[in-house]
């Protein structure tokens, strides 16, 4: 495949105005599926979380999951949407082997939620209102694995395996209206918007919203129009964008790629594009046109959903704080500086830090670990920090430091171990033998040994040349393989000098 030409981002923005749009799919964390009693669980053996309904066997009928409706209403409310008094399901007809019925039950004319707005704060403090067109309920499809080809792609594959565990998992699809005016901030806004939606879902407790598992998936629509032109340009829809940083990169790449085509006098093809994490590029997928005909019609097997004012108001009263308001509150509660807080927001780590604090860590410790060591590893691996380690494990590590069991340096090794799958922090400490030597006797013995090798040091210390302590502390730390608290060694050394 020929590599696409791209224009520099700055030049692209000079010539064209980017217009964005997003379709975010969130898998709801209900116990059972959208229309069946099959368990809604991730990671089970293929084709075990299925009932005849999920396989679309002859004679089966769907039944709406009430909890999924409640979750969808809560999400709609949190997105500032109106909730439809009557909402109905429709069939979207198309043949594909991951669809057991060869139609998807979704919502068309009457989505459960519509006309909302989400407040998104950018790094420079700008507040952006992303307009939400609708949020609708639907069922997920199964998962295809192509075998015999390269890297699991369908090209060159000799066969495909289907796992229907995911078929029928409840989804809410959140569709924005076209987003204008993001300009240079377009890639950042893309990431920040998805991060906010993710935070909302997590704070509502309706989804784990883990992008690496596909709990939250984003399709990014990008189009460019020449400066001064009213008419919208042709858009592409980039799929398979499975991390926050990919959202940012994919939008940036599409702007640059489309700009290069337009500048060369070409036209943009309306199509689905696939994001490739490894190369940081997109490639053409299925051409998409208005001729695509899904033959939507009202789903005759289901009655309309009529939630009733009372339920809607009850769910509204139970809503957690809106993210922007919550951010302002948390910043105060945690005592972070503007810079520190922005770091957290940009890293999409608010939810993680909240959970880590809730699990018993101090806010500063939580911030330090998430934006420090964990973010560093995430960056190296090209994944989101949240996918690496649980807030509980971060809190447990922080508590070990606080208790003096670990030094910061040792704690970094513990974090590494937990991420590498070696178990809980305590298990890593035990397995790797990482605990700080807190036995003063052992430390004093090591100090004496170091002093014996450098007898003039005690003299220097007594003369008040405190910097001389460094050499002894270094030697002790070395002898203790780093598992000593340097401050304590220093204390003991100075006591020793004072004694003699």
């Amino acid at each position, binding site marked *: 495949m020929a590599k696409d030409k791209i224009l520099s981002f700055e030049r692209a923005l000079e010539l064209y105005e980017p217009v964005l749009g997003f379709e975010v799919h969130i898998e709801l964390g209900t116990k059972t599926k959208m229309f069946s009693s099959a368990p809604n669980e991730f990671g089970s053996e293929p084709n075990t979380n299925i009932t*005849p309904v999920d*396989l*679309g*066997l*002859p*004679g*089966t*009928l*769907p*039944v*709406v999951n009430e909890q999924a409706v409640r979750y969808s209403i809560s999400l709609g409310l949190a997105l500032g949407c109106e909730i439809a008094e009557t909402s109905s399901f429709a*069939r979207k*007809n198309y*043949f594909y*082997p991951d669809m*057991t*019925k*060869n*139609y998807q039950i979704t919502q068309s004319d009457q989505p459960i939620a519509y006309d909302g707005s989400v407040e998104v704060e950018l790094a420079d403090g700008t507040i952006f209102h992303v307009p939400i067109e609708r949020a609708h309920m639907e069922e997920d499809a199964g998962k295809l694995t192509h075998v015999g080809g390269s890297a699991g792609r369908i090209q060159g594959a000799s066969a*495909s395996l*289907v796992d229907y565990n995911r078929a029928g998992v409840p989804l809410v699809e959140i569709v924005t209206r076209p987003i204008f005016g993001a300009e240079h901030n377009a890639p950042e806004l893309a990431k920040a918007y998805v991060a906010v939606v993710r935070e909302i879902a997590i704070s509502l407790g309706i989804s784990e919203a883990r992008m690496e598992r596909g709990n939250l998936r984003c399709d990014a629509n990008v189009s460019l129009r020449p400066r001064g032109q009213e008419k919208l340009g042709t858009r592409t829809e980039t799929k398979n964008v499975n991390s926050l940083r990919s959202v940012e990169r994919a939008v940036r790449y599409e702007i640059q790629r489309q700009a290069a085509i337009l500048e060369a006098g070409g036209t943009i093809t309306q199509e689905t594009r696939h994001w490739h994490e490894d190369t940081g590029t997109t490639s053409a997928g299925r051409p998409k046109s208005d001729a695509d*005909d899904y*033959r*939507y*019609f009202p789903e*005759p*097997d*289901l*009655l309309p959903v009529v939630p009733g004012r009372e339920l809607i108001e009850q769910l509204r009263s139970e809503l957690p704080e809106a993210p922007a308001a919550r951010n302002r509150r948390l910043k105060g509660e945690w005592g972070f500086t503007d810079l520190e807080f922005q770091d957290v927001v940009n890293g999409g780590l608010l939810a993680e830090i909240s959970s880590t604090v809730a699990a018993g860590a101090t806010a500063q410790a939580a911030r330090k670990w998430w934006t420090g060591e964990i973010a560093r590893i995430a960056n190296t691996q090209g994944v989101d920090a949240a996918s690496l380690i649980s807030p509980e494990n971060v809190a447990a590590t922080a508590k070990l430091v606080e208790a003096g069991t670990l030094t910061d340096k040792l704690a970094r090794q513990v974090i590494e171990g937990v991420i590498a799958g070696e178990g809980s922090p305590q298990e890593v400490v035990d397995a790797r033998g990482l605990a700080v030597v807190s036995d003063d006797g052992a430390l004093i013995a090591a100090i004496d040994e170091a002093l014996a090798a450098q007898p003039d040091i005690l003299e220097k210390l007594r003369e008040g040349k405190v910097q001389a302590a460094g050499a002894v502390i270094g030697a002790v730390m070395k002898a203790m393989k780093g598992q000593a608290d340097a401050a304590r060694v220093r204390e003991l050394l100075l006591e020793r000098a004072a004694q003699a």
Partner: protein
Amino acid sequence: MSDLIRLSAAELAAKLSAGEVSAVEATQAHLDRIAAVDGDVHAFLHVSDSALETARGIDERRAAGEQLHELAGVPLAVKDVLVTTDMPSTSGSKILEGYMSPFDATVVERARAAGLIAIGKTNMDEFAMGSSTEHSAYGPTHNPWDLSRIPGGSGGGSAAAVAAFEAPLALGSDTGGSIRQPAHVTGTVGVKPTYGGVSRYGSIALASSLDQIGPVTRTVLDAALLHDVIGGHDARDSTSIPESWVSMAAAAREGQSGEVLKGLRVGVVKQFSGEGFQAGVEQRFAETLTLLQGAGAEIVEIDAPHFEYAVAAYYLILPAEASSNLARYDSVRFGLRVHPQGGGTVEDVMAATREAGFGPEVKRRIILGTYALSSGYYDAYYGSAQKVRTLIQRDFNAAFDQVDVIASPSAPTTAFKIGERVNDPLSMYLNDITTIPANLAGVPGISIPMGLAPEDGLPTGLQLMAPVRADDRLYRVAAAIEARLEEGWGHTLISQAPALGGK
């Protein structure tokens, strides 16, 4: 012919519970009858090899003193549109040849729980598309009254099985008349309950908003007894009505003995007469109305101006829903799989399978429905058809402001010859003109025998329709009319059916 098979289900049930007959005897008698006549009739696609064992179980439970359901031990024929775990379920199609369901349809489950003995699966037009059972992929069923004629459709197998005394009870499905029109042409009783009155779970869907499962029997009381077994709310069918129902059997018994016809307001639809209606059918209908008047009923002519668009609307809504419902038959998870020559993609396999597995009528309707739902045509076809549907519901509402029930011939003609209309889909579709409005409006309808047409000596049926949820009214009135008619004839109509199998 064994006397056991000529009994109504209620009579057989009485003998079973009195211990005069065992379930094994009753089952064996019907299996023998099937063996004797079904070669000619071809009502069954599959005969159970476990029915006798099931019957033995019922006898043992009865012997042990267990309190069994009134109908326990009575044989039941099951239309092949309903899925069963112990017999294949094909819906009359090659694409499902040999398909075994991992679950029983709710109605089958309830019938089994009541101790009914499922003795076999009955023939039908492929995926219930048709009015003659000629569109079955497994060959046509023959009308027991005249083997050269159709038994109606799509449920010709169930109606013929009951008419030929191969089973006292059968289950059918009615999307546009598939229970009532076969009842009409075979001299039997068929009921399409209120939409939502009987669970559709496990019924292989044709058109979800129209399909309804119902009883096929030889008497009104039998239909009511079976209705009580299969009806009522089912959480697995979202369109199933949650409210409880009164006993249909009690209503039928009340109709048999009481004076329910006195003061009954019977509506006659202006639009259901004239062109297309056979003279003998109209004659029997007129006589039945006279009989009703004699019994104190008031006949009221009603205008249902939108009924004339019912067939047109139906043949857009049904194919549209069917085109989607039948999309799942793609060879990926179950059913027939045909590999195209030289291999191919999954799309090629799907296409080859559907090409080979579906018959011409099914393909015709899938294409029609796909077209009707296409963007750009949706409003003109599917959208307009739904509006007509609403107008027909209003016609019914207006009519039921004036009358208690609506009466009509169940179909315009008696049974036509096999092969006569198979290449003329339009004339086949028009045979459902009287039955389709009830499906579009969701109201209940029943067909009971109303005599033989003088010109051809073939059965005709009287259709009664009532408002939504007034199924009990249908049974009450139909049982009363049945009693009056039989009193006049001096026998049941079905007793006039020719003997079969050379006996």
